[in-house]
């Protein structure tokens, strides 16, 4: 049985096909057609809806010494997601808000009014999705979990394609909404939280092996609550697929028309959805979304957090998970290169118990991993940076926002302490790890290149020698995103950039497009 709130109405479903998306449910079952299908692949945002979630329970489980999440300040967390790839059954315990729920008593919501006033729609087909993304942003600004500056507006819209307006009036509309501070969603938040908590306390919910019986025999969607329950399910249903954000698996349903028998949803597994922050390491549950991981990464690994702003769109980051990105083992996943250079470990759990392995040992071949049958990734354990270590991350793609990497390069360096004075022998490279995505069949370390740089002063000349070695580490391919030659040449140049940044030889606005554009935007 699945229960969720459709705005303020409780919906109870006894049978849900595992592949049924929220969008299909809205358009074909409820015949609420305000939510549009643009691509059915999570790329265009026309189907954007907003989910309201109580995160309290999850975040209360934080390690006692850990930091409280910024998200904790608000009882209801609102996020925009793509309805087209969100499994309907994953709505269990959440509030679903669609474009049909914004008007109150015939009046437009402030977000809608601003879009009308600023001429923010032309053909109107992307508009419901844009309104929903702006709603989630506006509610988040009110709760202090998003900022009102232009960069955050762009992030909020990063997953919404508009082919007509050129976005300028939409950005103006976003700015205009800030003149309003209240709406019915805010007013009714306490009631909604109560309703959601009533759903969540449903005894059916925490048994681990309950879920939705599908319409056909042996077609099931499970929503376990603990990792032990998850392991039991995996053992009982060896053919089952794990689903977290469905940002990749969802495409198998909408694009390849796959009809899965059994899905096990990880988004309610307590151990998989928590972040534990210890003095030495950050332990991120495999089903923690990119968005929820980001505040923690921002604190300890700012370069990693910046990278996440360019991983998919906000809708994807609100759904997709670190564990999914790793388990998918795609050569162009964005987080594996960073996790590789940070020497992260994975905690793998099955009915036989848990084991930890280095992430480098996890990727066996193209989309092949060390996961054994019946095992899942429980968490990703990232050692924090110690003194004299740095992390730098670069992503190259055709488009800045919401694009898959042509290549991604991460570099971690530990150097000797600065002896001060004129000791030119200080600051030597004690240890270095370089890893790339998009350069091989798996996310991969550049061992030979690392070797060249080991023990050097990391000078321009050292980096030039190292660049020549990259072709020993990587033999990239030509594909739709870039040529092999470009990948190799740019990977080398990114090493140069890393060196220039560490040397602080140039002012930031002469070194990085981001800094330079920021300077223009704030003129």
């Amino acid at each position, binding site marked *: 049985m699945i229960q969720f709130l459709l705005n303020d109405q409780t919906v109870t479903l006894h049978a849900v096909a595992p592949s049924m998306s929220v969008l299909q449910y809205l358009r074909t079952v409820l015949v609420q057609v305000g939510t549009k299908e643009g691509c059915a692949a999570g790329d265009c945002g026309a189907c954007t809806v907003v989910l309201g979630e109580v995160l309290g329970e999850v975040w209360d489980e934080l390690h006692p010494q850990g930091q409280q999440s910024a998200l904790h300040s608000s009882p209801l967390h609102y996020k925009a997601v793509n309805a087209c790839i969100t499994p309907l059954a994953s709505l269990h315990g959440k509030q679903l808000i669609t474009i049909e729920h914004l008007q109150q008593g015939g009046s437009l919501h402030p977000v809608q009014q601003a879009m009308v006033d600023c001429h923010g729609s032309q053909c109107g087909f992307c508009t*419901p999705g844009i309104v929903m993304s702006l709603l989630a942003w506006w509610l988040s600004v009110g709760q202090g979990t998003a900022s009102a500056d232009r960069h955050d507006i762009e992030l909020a819209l990063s997953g919404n394609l508009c082919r007509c307006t050129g976005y300028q009036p939409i950005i103006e509309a976003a700015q205009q909404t800030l003149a309003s501070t209240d709406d019915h969603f805010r007013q009714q938040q306490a009631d909604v939280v109560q309703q959601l908590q009533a759903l969540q306390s449903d005894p059916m919910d925490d048994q681990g092996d309950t879920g939705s019986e599908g319409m056909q025999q042996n077609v099931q969607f499970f929503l376990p609550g603990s990792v032990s329950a998850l392991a039991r399910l995996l053992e009982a249903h060896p053919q089952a697929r794990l689903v977290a954000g469905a940002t990749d698996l969802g495409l198998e349903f909408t694009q390849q028309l796959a009809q899965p028998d059994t899905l096990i949803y990880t988004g309610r597994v307590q151990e998989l959805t928590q972040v534990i922050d210890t003095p030495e390491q950050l332990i991120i549950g495999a089903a923690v979304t990119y968005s929820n991981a980001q505040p923690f990464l921002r604190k300890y690994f700012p370069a990693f957090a910046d990278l996440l702003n360019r991983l998919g769109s906000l809708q994807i980051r609100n759904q997709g998970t670190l564990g999914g990105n790793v388990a998918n083992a795609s050569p162009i996943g964005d987080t594996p290169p960073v996790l590789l250079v940070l020497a992260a470990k994975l905690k793998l759990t099955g009915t036989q118990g848990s084991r930890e392995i280095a992430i480098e040992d996890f990727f066996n071949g193209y989309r092949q991993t060390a996961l054994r049958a019946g095992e899942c990734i429980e968490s990703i354990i990232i050692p924090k940076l110690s003194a004299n270590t740095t992390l730098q991350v670069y992503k190259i793609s055709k488009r*800045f926002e919401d694009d898959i990497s042509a290549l991604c390069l991460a570099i971690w360096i530990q150097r000797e302490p600065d002896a001060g004075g004129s000791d030119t022998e200080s600051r030597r490279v004690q240890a270095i790890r370089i890893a790339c995505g998009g350069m091989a069949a798996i996310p991969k370390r550049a061992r030979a290149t690392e070797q060249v740089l080991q023990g050097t002063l990391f000078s321009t000349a050292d980096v030039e020698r190292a660049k020549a070695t990259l072709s020993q580490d990587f033999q990239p391919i030509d594909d739709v995103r870039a040529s092999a030659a470009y990948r190799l040449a740019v990977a080398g140049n990114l090493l140069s950039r890393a060196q220039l940044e560490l040397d602080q030889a140039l002012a930031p606005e002469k070194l990085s497009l981001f800094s330079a554009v920021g300077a223009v935007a704030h003129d």
Partner: protein
Amino acid sequence: MTDTRFKSDAALKTDTLKGATGQSMQHESAVKHVTGAALYVDDLAEPRQLLHAAVGQSPVACGIIRTLDLSAVLAAPGVAAVLTLADIPGHIDIGPVFPGDPILADGAVKFHGQPLFAVAADTLDNARRAALLAHVEIEEAPPLLDPQEAIARNQTVRPVHTMQRGDAAAAIAKAPHVLEASLSVGGQEHYYLEGQVSMVAPTEDGGMQVWCSTQHPSEVQKLVAEVLHLPIGAVTVETRRMGGAFGGKETHAAQWACLAALLANKTRRPVKMRLPRAMDMMLTGKRHAFENRYRVGFDDSGLLLGADITVIGNCGCSPDLSDAIVDRAMFHADNAYFLPAATITGHRAFTNMVSATAFRGFGGPQGMLIIEKAMDDMARALGKDPLEVRKRNLYQGPDRNLTPYHQTVSSETLTKVIQELEISSDYWARRQQISDYNAGSPLLKKGLALTPVKFGISFTVQHLNQAGALIHVYTDGSIHLNHGGTEMGQGLNTKVAQVVAEELQVDLQHIHITATRTDKVPNTSPTAASSGADLNGQAARDAARTIRLRLAEYLVEQQGALRDSIRFANNQVQFENSSGAHCMSFAKLAEAAYMARVSLSATGYYRTPKIHYDRNTASGRPFFYYATGAAVSEVLVDTLTGEYRVLRVDILHDVGRSLNPALDKGQVEGGFIQGMGWLTTEELRWDEQGRLLTTGAATYKIPTAADIPPVFNVALMEDQPNEEATIYHSKAVGEPPFMLAISVWSALRDAISSVADYNINPPLDTPATPERVFWAIQAAQQAAATHRNGANTP
């Protein structure tokens, strides 16, 4: 607003009328858009017993079909019918102008994914799954994918065509400087957010009711009738709105409507056909890719003396609209510049790719790009600023005002636009700042460019330059308006309603525009060529004036009004008769006229005057007028990676006397960003088997909100009424701003050439992806190094 030239219009203007022309009224559907209440074809209430259709596709790009066994398709769950060519009672070719577009592959397969058959089932998923079950055997042949090879092998969809004025070869031979270069111009996927969709229901008298997302309802109507062997009058097509079109739903919407109609005919049930995104991108045409070449002769001042320009359009596997599209590329190979002697040759290459089709600009952008490249190249060769060379070559004065197709250009606005923009954008000061920045910035380089646009307005196919409208006035004064144009987001309905509000002097809220229907206004032209408001606005005005005249006649005849005293103003009519001055609401007048048995329904009609063109001599006046504008773009390029950002854009665009400045500004901004996408990140890729690799937004990257320039100043020319008698002296705005984005590409080239001290302008094919920019930088750096080494060698 007192312009004596337009007394009759100005006399009607009042400040209190809500929604007259010139006011920035919101889009008529704005509230419906933001609430999700606006209905697109897939949102309409589904008729009882509706079936959903899908097509089965060819796995190869070229070959002969040997076996097509559909038994498994027919046996699949939920399937009601399959459709093959043998089931078609009427025409099987739906080519819009020339034959060549069989509705399903006719023996031979001409592009990868080409529909071989169609299937209808109870659900969309069942139809799509069933379509994968066919047993197909195709004798494969190597596909032809290179347009230059096609021309070499004489594989064309239409014959070559040439425009000529003067002796270009001789002029170039005598010129002090000669340059030649080539440029590959990429195509573009429309990526309308609403994919192709049609729903068709059989009517009780053997006809078909069609709901179709199309820019051309009349053509869909004609083609549905032809494939079913029905009279055109038995088919009705309705289009309320499209979720974007951009040319992609001009001719390429019909196939899906026709297949749905054929399946509806076969099953006698309603059928809906909606293409999934990947199939939409594979099966519908795109902007033509072009291979262009120039050879120019010029003097020391950068003045062009002669130009020989060749453009090769990659038309794909059929003619579709390619004859007119390549012609328009040729018509715009001069852009804003006078070519004293010119030869312009246009080829139409056949390739085993989906037939390329209309897309905002219709070949114009691809043609313009080659002459803009020449301007930059000439400037670099002479060590001059490209703006100086551009200005030197503009159409100017009586001696430099003739196009290569012998139309006279009135250049006053063009000159003014550039002059004003040069000042408002602070071009020369910024040029200096950028030089200074670049001198002190080894890795990041800035670039700047100002490019103009001169775009010809009118369909170059003359008969399309006509339009109709239908107006009913009801007894409460409410007004029903229909016209032949379609609403695809551009705000056409709003503009046309504003025209009627102006003419009848009633507030806009009284005017109700409903769906475009072929049974309301017949034989319409596509809403294309930026002509929507020009044509349909005039037709609606004609209808409104007919009604206004009848109402005035009624006042004269029945109320004894003095003819000259009658004034329609602000929802009222004022008149004088023997008993004095009177004032009556428009609603009362309508009711009184009805009681006096006056017809309150009228059609309107318009045909564009003055245009004529003889394609045999390639001379005449194909365009009623030109729309003009200019843009300055500033970019920042990362020489380590080729990545870049557009930092600032200033646009000044001429829309004549705007019908609705807010909507016009929306067209300018939206067109510019779409053009920027075409020239930067939007890259279509095919593999060696002719399979499209970029079949979704995951791999085909249109701009997002973060791609737009942080400083984006867009202004419309003020006090610049169209000198031709267009609707309220406005100008068409749909396509021209698209080409303003050439300034971004030109600015990228500027930044790249900075690494070679502005002496070298390396090739930069489009789209200028980060990778292409990177290689151009490498080329410039190498050329600069060679140049330096060469200079040091005695």
